[in-house]
């Protein structure tokens, strides 16, 4: 599992690659923890390389979303594959995230 954060002028660019299962979630959370408070900047998460996500991964995303919403910014998910999208649909996350 590979997680990167790129800080641009007005937003954070996050790239998720690999399988975000329960085992990997702890490390990913450690990496993404700074984004729990975004300071008004939007977060764009590129899921192009994301092959799998478990509920622990979803929990990290919703924590980021909650922080962003509190700061008045948005979280945009892009390039999700169909399997990941179907998980988002099952959990209703498709309705609360901005999905591109």
């Amino acid at each position: 599992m590979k997680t990167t954060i790129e800080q641009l002028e007005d937003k954070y660019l996050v790239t998720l690659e690999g399988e975000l299962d329960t085992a990997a979630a702890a490390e990913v959370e450690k990496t993404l923890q700074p984004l729990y408070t975004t300071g008004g900047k939007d977060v764009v998460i590129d899921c192009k390389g994301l092959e799998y996500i478990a509920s622990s991964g979803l929990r990290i995303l919703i924590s980021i979303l909650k922080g962003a919403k509190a700061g008045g910014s948005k979280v945009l998910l892009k390039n999700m594959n169909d399997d990941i999208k179907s998980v988002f649909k099952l959990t209703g996350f498709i309705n609360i995230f901005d999905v591109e």
Partner: protein
Amino acid sequence: MWGRKPLIIPRCPGIQAHGKAARRSGGHRASTCMNRLKHFIRSLRNRRALLVVILAVLMLELLSGAQYYFTHHLMEDELEKYAEMELTTKAIIMKRIIEDSEHTLKGHIMEVKRNLAFPDSMPGILKQITKYSPYLQGCGIAFIPDYYPDKGRLFEPYALKTDSGIQCLQVADGAFDYTKDGFFCDIMKKKNNSWVGPYDDMYLGQRLISYAVPIYEFTGDTVAVFGIDIDTENLGDTLNYRHIYPSSFDLLLTEDGEFISGPNDPGLHQEVQFVTSLINDSTVQRRPSSKGRSKIIDFDGRERDGSVFYVNMKGKPHWQIAVVCYDDEVYSSLLRLRYRLLLLSLLAFGILLYVIWRFAEGEKELRQKTLEQERLAGELRIASNIQQTLLPEEDVLLKGISDVQVEGRLIPAKAVGGDLYNAFVRDGKLFFCIGDVSGKGIPSALIMAITQALFRNIASREDNPAHIMRLLNETACRNNKANIFVTLFVGVLDLPTGHLRYCNSGHELPILIDHSPLTIDHSPSQMSAEASARGGQQCSMFNVQCSMIEAKPNLPIGLFDDFNYEMQSMQMPPGATLFLYTDGLTEARNADGKLFGRDRVVQMMEACGPKEPKQLVEAVIEKWHQFVGATEQSDDLTLLALRYTPSQEQNILDEAITLRNDIREVEALGAFVKQVAGQLSLDKSMVGKLRLAVEEAVVNVMEYAYPKGTTGDVNIRATSNGRRLKFIITDAGVSFNPTEVAAADTTLSAEERPVGGLGILLVRELMDTINYERIDGKNVLTLTKSILNS
């Protein structure tokens, strides 16, 4: 699988019977009565009743009017007869007075003539005449002037009746010149006897009427006028001494209509004048009497209406006699009669109105009652339909479940009943119940509906039948003022294992029908001598063994909210059938009053042999119908049969992996799922789903079954028959049932969403079934997924 639910058209006794209009109960307040009356009168406008009332009133009035008319006519005739009689009588009296007076005078003419030479004898003669004639006021002889030179120019001796006797007067004493008086001149001129007057006598100051004759000397010259005077006042009294009606009066008029005499009452003066002028007025309409010679003038427009009857007397003088009658007196009896009739007709009208009112009220009430009954019948029909829909729908709940067959029937005795049954599959378990609410009718039906809904609700999150029973009991005890209780049998059959857990609350014991010897699994503490004695009715026909399952009776729910319901369990042998029923079956009576009885049920089961639940239920119902015959069904009848038919197919795959309760082990789980999926050639999307579901379930176990700090293993076994893939996750941690965990609400917004609850949601969404059992101190969670199309 599910037998078709019979559409029962319930009998609704008493609904068609409209009955007689119920008597209104008394004690209505007057205001209510008035309001009703007002309403009734208002409502009359559009009613035939009004027409009837009007017609009746018109008829009554017409009859009364006709009667009045005819009676009036009759009385008019009678009046004419009376008046005629009165006039005749009075004429006779008058005639007698006239004739008497005339005869008296005529009888003394000769004596006067003989004594012409002796003027001083005249007073004596006159005195005698006056004395013997009662009506005479006086009597006198007026001699022509200078007839007796020594008596002066005028000489008229006169005898006058006074209170103190008869006085003799010499009228002609110079103060009164009778030669200029009308009657003297008249007689002298006519030389004939005649009646004179009436006139006001200046000298006597009275109104008189006189009869006079001329006195001839032997030479043939008229020398004197001999006359008598009659006091008209006296005459009036005689005329009015008696009347046909109290205020009637009689008048005497001359032929020319001049008033002679009448009643002397000064109060009647005006009336007398009016009647006199009426008779003298030729323009006034008069009609002849049908009973005699008299003429009638009717007058009105005055204070009192009335009629004048008058007639001319026969012979000379041709005077007229009149009698006046007033209508109010003549027709007073008729008026009284009229008023009485009016009163009676009013009374009759009132009674009629009252009768119609009561009739209309009765009719209205009857109509309202009928409407009410129809409404009630309609509502009962709807309630009955609703109650039927509360029962489990055919095919819906057991769709795709091949491990069990269920058939249920409810035949209510009335439109709505207090029996219930339910059965549905959740998480690989069949939840079922059968129950009987105490009492009958709508109150029981309401409790039935509540219990039915509650069971569905509680059992959709609670797996333990004793817990379900406890929760049902708590709700049933709350506000149970009617003290309605429910006997219930709740069962939970684990479909993968055939493990049946149940809890009884005073309900009839279900019958287990089995091919193979029965094995009952219960802890020794739950054993009771009673249960042992009741159970174990074994038989060998068709190799079928029937037995009442052992169940503690406990207590019906709704009695004590803190009662501790105990759960029992047993193993359901494959192919065995559990038959549940309510006392509507065992306590059904035939025409002879015999009970259907439990033995008959058991015998039937033995005789029937192994059957599909649907056939079994239908056979029992048929038997029940035959038994009760035409006897009225006294209680609801409910039957529920379920047959355990687990699939016994060969597994083409059986793999297992054991992990420690460490999140990091999850990586190995991913590899395990991929390997299993690879063996079954499942596509990538399916692999993702299976991996996610199994991972979530295993992580759940790791987090909850093993509290922090404890260690243990989680075994994951994957089996497949080629059509379904099954993951059985077993751990030895604390009892934890993930199917009772509430799944996350996917409709909430980002801010509202809790972080947890996603795992179980994903497991439920991704897998076909999820089943939890605590077996031998272990948590056993089974997830299944159809892989046919993958």
